């Protein structure tokens, strides 16, 4: 062998190179296909929707049979219900996961709970909507009203029940990711803490949960992505066809806060209504695109916020060792 051989063109190698290049091109194309689909969808939405997005659109209520005005009540409703949903789902989900990982001995009951959680994740969302109406409104709500003598306060669709229904929908996501996060905490850290005289709960609070925080937040992100923008579960449980005022109540007559007992408008439901129930679906078309754009951006920013939060926790001490 001399280096001179390198200068002689090798035809066979060239043929293989061509084949390989074609093959690579096909794979490339397949890999980029989902990206193309995403770009096309987003492109269409942005292109048709961006025109209607004005300050007025974002801050006003819809008027004239939803063909004019803005979508502020829907934005407010979506944010409120997502917030309420996560406030309900996070403590329950994290609590359940802590129970399963830290307290319950592996056995029949834990397996039953786990099977239930997995099955919960597979149920179509419209079933949650029906369940929410039947359980929360007709059963829990009516009985609360009877017991508390509150007339018709709890026994009707409202944000609380819609959020509770959504919370059940996202519960499996939170439970599963919290379980994973807890299991990722080395057993040796629990032993070290217990050996120093910490109780089980002190160990969970001071050693386990701080390390699992990043993973739990990931669960919250996934839950928000899953829950925000869901239409079916809130369809029968609280969202309003048209409600231009905001679901706000003044606490002690001064401090404004979200009123969980009120109904609300919501972005995805609003899109559905405009597309299918509007007297003039054609006329609302640009608004539909605008609303979709707002919904997508909102979910995007919710996720982005949560991701930033998580990476902040990751960077803070020790999370380096986790992943």
């Amino acid at each position: 062998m001399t280096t001179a051989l390198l200068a002689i063109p090798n035809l066979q190698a060239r043929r293989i190179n061509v084949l390989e290049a074609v093959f690579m091109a096909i794979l490339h194309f397949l890999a980029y296909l989902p990206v193309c689909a995403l770009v096309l969808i987003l492109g269409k939405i942005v292109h048709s929707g961006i025109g209607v997005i004005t300050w007025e659109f974002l801050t006003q209520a819809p008027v004239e049979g939803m063909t004019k005005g803005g979508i502020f009540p829907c934005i407010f409703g979506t944010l409120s219900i997502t917030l309420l949903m996560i406030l309900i789902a996070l403590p329950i989900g994290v609590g359940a996961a802590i129970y399963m990982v830290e307290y319950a001995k592996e056995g029949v009951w834990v397996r039953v709970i786990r099977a239930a959680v997995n099955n919960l994740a597979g149920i179509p969302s419209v079933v949650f909507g029906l369940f929410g109406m039947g359980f929360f409104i007709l059963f829990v709500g009516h009985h609360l009203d009877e017991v508390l003598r509150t007339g018709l306060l709890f026994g009707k669709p409202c944000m609380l029940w819609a959020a509770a229904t959504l919370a059940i929908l996202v519960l499996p996501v939170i439970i599963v990711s919290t379980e994973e996060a807890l299991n990722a905490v080395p057993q040796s850290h629990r032993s070290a803490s217990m050996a120093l005289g910490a109780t089980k709960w002190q160990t969970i609070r001071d050693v386990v949960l701080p390390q699992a925080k990043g993973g739990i937040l990931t669960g919250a992100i996934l839950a928000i992505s899953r829950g925000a923008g869901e239409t079916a579960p809130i369809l029968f449980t609280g969202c309003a066809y048209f409600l231009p005022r905001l679901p706000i109540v003044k606490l002690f007559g001064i401090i404004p806060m979200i009123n969980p007992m009120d109904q609300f408008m919501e972005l995805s439901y609003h899109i559905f209504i405009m597309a299918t129930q509007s007297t003039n679906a054609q006329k609302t078309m640009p608004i539909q695109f605008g609303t979709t754009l707002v919904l997508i951006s909102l979910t995007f920013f919710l996720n982005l916020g949560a991701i930033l939060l998580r990476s902040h926790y990751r960077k803070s001490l020790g999370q380096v060792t986790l992943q």
Partner: protein
Amino acid sequence: MNRPETTEKNLKTEHKSGVEMDEALVKIKTRALSVYYGATQALKQVDMDIKKQAVTALIGPSGCGKSTFLRVFNRMNDMIPDTRLEGKATIDGIDIYSPNINVVTLRRLVGMVFQKSNPFPKTIFDNVAYGPKLNGVTNRSQLEEIVERSLIQAAIWDEVKDRLHRSAMELSGGQQQRVCIARALAVSPEILLMDEPASALDPISTAKIEELIHDLKKEYTIVIVTHNMQQAARVSDYTGFFLLGELIEFDKTERIFEVPKDKRTEDYITGRFG
């Protein structure tokens, strides 16, 4: 299994692995101590007197029950499902398995250092301050004082004093282990249990830990598990040799290594063990 009668008489009289020890100098005492994991018996009728402010080494082949024996004294075996204990274990004459013993208090009295260094992913300061905080110390300057004292005692202060508020995970293995020792010392225990504390360390770090053990015995009663015969010979005053859950021989370290009474002990320490 018949539970042996553990009367006062039984506690005072001589026992099979006989070292004569002044009753007043005994910190930990076990009599007919057996531990079961489900159906397997990990310790068989162990009698041992562990001397105050001395180092007692536990040696023996893998699986012979050394760690199990160690975990008897801070009741960490309690956390393993299906464990059962028979016989008696006392500290300063108090039965630590009596129903009115507070396990949390016991564990503050009996510190433990594990084989693999296991600092929390917190700052060095927070690692060492963890125990005192559990004890309700909240005063910052008091905490600082405890942390400094513990780190000095664990012979790591000079190496970490400028980085107390950096993560303990950034330290080397040997440094981490000494931080763990400091963490155990910070709650001012009287007894220190060490389960192969240097087995994952390089020779220099090991030498540092051994030196440290030598200093610590002035204040603490130390029980150390080791697989390293030279280490047992170097650091300990008493040595117990375990085999299949039985305490075969227990005596002054130099006697165990120079004139072992039992053939099996001799075989083990000379490395002729099958």
